[in-house]
């Protein structure tokens, strides 16, 4: 859909969700799922060479077949590179999370290990083994002496 305001500014919407939010006068920079929010909050790649390829130019260029052909090819390559870079950007952002996860796991284990493992599980046997071993040693010692 398209909405034209009285000051001749044109707004285009891809779906009714966006349109309805606009009509409610919500600021897209504060609505979390919008691209505007993501870019302003630094959640997505904003400044990059690959993004400079697709922009609105005010100087018209006369049609030339070979230029158009080259553009189509170049466009596809640029798109690929752009995607890679965007993905990398987001991944980098999420690395910190992984770090935090690790630390949390360690704390969790330290605190609550008693829920799955009794502290002296298997220790009885160990003790016994130790005692047996000690006895054996004493016996050996006694024998020797």
């Amino acid at each position, binding site marked *: 859909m398209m909405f034209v305001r009285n000051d001749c500014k044109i707004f285009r919407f891809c779906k009714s969700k966006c349109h309805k939010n606009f009509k409610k006068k919500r600021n897209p920079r504060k609505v979390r799922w919008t691209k505007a929010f993501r870019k302003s909050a630094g959640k997505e790649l904003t400044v990059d*060479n*690959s993004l*400079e*390829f*697709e*922009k*609105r*130019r005010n100087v018209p*260029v*006369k*049609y*030339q*077949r070979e*230029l*158009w052909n*080259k*553009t*189509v090819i*170049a*466009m*596809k*390559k*640029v*798109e690929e*590179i752009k995607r*890679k870079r965007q993905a*990398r950007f987001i*991944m980098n952002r999420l*690395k910190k999370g992984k770090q935090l996860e*690790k630390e*949390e*796991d*360690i704390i*969790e*284990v330290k605190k*609550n*290990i008693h*829920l*799955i*493992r*009794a502290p*002296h*599980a*298997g220790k*009885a*046997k160990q003790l016994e083994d130790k005692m047996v071993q000690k006895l054996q040693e004493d016996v050996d010692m006694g024998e020797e002496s």
Partner: protein
Amino acid sequence: MALYNFKKIMVVPTAKDFIDLTLSKTQRKTPTVIHKHYQIHRIRHFYMRKVKYTQQNYHDRLTQILADFPKLDDIHPFYADLMNVLYDKDHYKLALGQINIAKNLIDNVAKDYVRLMKYGDSLYRCKQLKRAALGRMCTIIKRQKQSLEYLEQVRQHLSRLPSIDPNTRTLILCGYPNVGKSSFINKVTRADVEVQPYAFTTKSLFVGHMDYKYLRWQVVDTPGILDHPLEERNTIEMQAITALAHLRAAVLYIMDVSEQCGHSLEEQMELFKNIRPLFANKPLIIVANKCDVKRIEELSEENQASFLFILYQGKLFKDFEEEGISVIETSTLTEEGVMKVKTEACDKLLSYRVETKMKGRKVNDVLNRLHLAVPSKRDNKERPPFIPEGALLRRKAMEVDIPKRKLERDIELELGDDYVLDLQKYWDLMNENEKYDKIPEIWEGHNISDYIDPDIMKKLEELEQEEDLREKAGEYESDTESEDEEMQEIRELARKIRQKKKLRILESKEKDVHGPRMPRTVKKVEKKTLEKEMSGLGIDMEDKSNSHYAVQARRSRSVTRKRKREASEAPASRTRSSSRPPRDVSGVRDAKMLKKVKQMMKNSQRDMNRMGKKGEADRHVFDLKPKHLLAGKRKSGTTDRR
């Protein structure tokens, strides 16, 4: 000056209308309610007011009429004379005089009757006095019927007079009827005067305006003048004469050389000689009209001679400073000479006016204040006017009729049905053969035209280089660092712990707790669950003989064997023991008492049970017939529900 206010004269009502108007106004605007029993001064005042009001109205209206109509002595003599010619000065003055008298009479009447009203002693008397006063005033006006009618007609005609300014530059056209005066004015100005083949088509003065040398000029068209003495002239001709007499203007005497007007050349010249005195002190031009029919050269000899005679006569007159009257040939049909006449007449008049002004005394005051500044050359450089080439070319193109280029419309007409509108053939591209290409627009949601850039290949190369560098720097390698085994173990444990926690929470939510919250020690723990739990935690449960609960069980067994013999003692602990008597037989001595007790119980319960009550605490009173549902009329709502 009252000159141009002829259009603003108030409408003069007819006598009947005037009376009706004033009386109804009196009726409306003065109080109407009066009774016999009012106090006499109030009654008198009431009626006096009516009389005075009527008098006031008449007075105002008549004064206005008298003020609006122009006084013949106050206005420009041209207009005074014109009005005399049209409306007869005497009649006009008489009518206005009558109105004046009427006004005075009305005032007197009102005065008298107001004085009389002071002695009126009853409502009836005062009313009659008022009636008489009003009646007399109205009769006076009725008598002025003729004057009022006449003045109304004068007013209407006055408002339609052409607005001629007597002081500005003017050209007057005069001559016999049908010579071409009106055609001339039509040609020179924007006026639209009627031109017809019969004489006296123009019956009054007409004004037209034209521009020359950035000034506004008036051109006055007059009705034709016939050749007879002044006394015998009719109203129409007199208008022309008046104009000639009073307006200080250039005179264009128009003659018809071809004699199509119905009068011969001699007659026209006779007229000219007779009117000559009127042309004194006025620049004069003789216009020989209708020269497309006959030219002066074609005239016979004698006629030519008389013409020249006139020209020579001009020289003998010492009033004229010019070299003689100019004779110009024109034709209003072919427009030949019209411009020449115009320019000459205007020039002559201008120079005449300037000279008169110079002779006067006012000029000297102005001359001292005037100074004409002329730009002086600062160097010898030539500075001709500059016209750009494009303008010259365009002017040339306008003059010469260049064949226009072939239009689409022409092609359309040629091809008829085969015609296809193909705008792409006009495109101005680098390669001509690419005009009919199909251009792709969208790819995967992106506009291709957003990517178009002459330098795109260069930029793409740079980008790819950058990308290579980054890849080499290892940016894109996946980050699954080989975590050491310890870390993995910890992860696994953490996962299990979280799961266990969730399970416990679920269990505790599933618990069905109805009773009071008892401490953990009250609850009995099953041996099986304990064993299972502990083995789940990793403790070795095979050797059970040494465990605490087994030891306790052995100990309690031995104690209970002894304890069985002493059965009568009630246990000190609160746990339930089988030797406690039930409540309904505790404290009852024997069976007879037991029976009686039971009977008493049943008696007390009988009433309650009959009522179907739960117990003695069930004292609830049910509202089986609520008022709000069963009382009241059946208002809006269905009737099948109560």
